[in-house]
């Protein structure tokens, strides 16, 4: 009986966490892959449920833990392992109708970011697209916050140098 009640509580807190974090997680994937964001979200949720014993209780920590799972799922996907999930069918169909035309400028700017060292690009995108703090990024990258600050500065200078060489307009 106690197991049943605990199971129900696990499920309720998991679903609540997913409801809160899923839009940001989906954007996280959508910004970094072309087609697979819904499947990667499904993969993240499946992994998170499988590892729910590791899920921290404080909401802010739970959210960042979920981002950590998402980061690993993305890394696996970028290494070439692709999975399709029936769970994601509806969301995938909906997303395909939501993609707007990318501007040439946006494509060019993202190409500049993609030319950075991966750890620099990750710092700058997590900071500006996901709005994560340096401390949160340090937690994800498993390095000291000072290292993240250094990476951010290197990314900033590298992008400034690229912009001065290319015709991408600056504001």
């Amino acid at each position, binding site marked *: 009986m106690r197991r049943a009640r605990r199971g129900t509580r696990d*499920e309720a807190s998991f679903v609540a966490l997913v409801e809160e974090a899923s839009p940001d997680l989906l954007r996280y994937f959508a910004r970094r892959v072309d087609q697979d964001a819904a499947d990667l979200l499904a993969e993240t949720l499946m992994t998170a449920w499988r590892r729910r014993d590791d899920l921290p209780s404080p909401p802010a920590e739970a959210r960042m833990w979920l981002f950590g799972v998402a980061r690993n799922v993305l890394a*696996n996907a970028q290494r070439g392992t692709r999975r399709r999930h029936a769970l994601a069918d*509806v969301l995938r169909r909906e997303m395909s109708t939501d993609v*707007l035309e*990318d*501007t040439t400028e*946006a494509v060019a700017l*993202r190409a500049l970011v993609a030319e950075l060292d991966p750890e620099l690009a990750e710092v700058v995108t997590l900071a500006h697209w996901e709005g994560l703090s340096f401390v949160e990024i340090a937690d994800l990258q498993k390095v000291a916050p000072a290292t993240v600050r250094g990476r951010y500065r290197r990314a*900033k200078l590298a992008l400034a140098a690229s912009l001065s060489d290319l015709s991408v307009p600056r504001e």
Partner: protein
Amino acid sequence: MDDDLDGALHALMTRADRARELSDDGVRVRASAMARAIVAQDRTRGRRRRVLAASLVPVLVLGTAGAAYAAVTVDWGRFWMQPAAWETWALTPDASFTYALPGGGSCEVRVGDVTYSPAADRPADVPADPAAADSAREYLRTADLARAIDVDAEIAKLRQQPMMYESEGDSIPFGYGTDHYNADVEYNLAVKDAVFTAVMSHVEAAGYPTTGLGFSSQERCEGEQR
């Protein structure tokens, strides 16, 4: 100068963000349904997963302390770990057959425990029909499963899809062409995939959605390559 650069970088990154108009509410509804479905599937298939878990998650053996480098390997002995006994449902399975492994060993597979448990709060456009379970059960009881399954086709699929073992933060490629390739393991996985494909294809061909349909399999192998 830093402040100027920070402002310029923020503007640049805002403009570089993908132009997507995702509705937070819509995503929350879909993601919440996905989360509930994951929980429901996990509970429905818990028994089957318990049977297979020990064999599908091999142990990583790290190099001994003092070695020049830590060699990561896969202990296939865990893969072939036998369940203690046949599950209750497997004593009266809907189907059973024996097949030979490439290395000369053999496995007996029992299939049954057909269940129908679609998520109650699934999206409205996802159909489900309890007749799917009857169709699956009838197929298992009447078909010659050993002849019906296409193991070679499943092996071809496995070889096109990188496979990883994920354990305690490590991911190890283990399929064809990797250092951890094992022909018996590949064949065993392909047989299980082929059974799944055959059952689901039959149900779909009969005109029923496979939503919420589940079944269990259990096997005992001997003489396998480790």
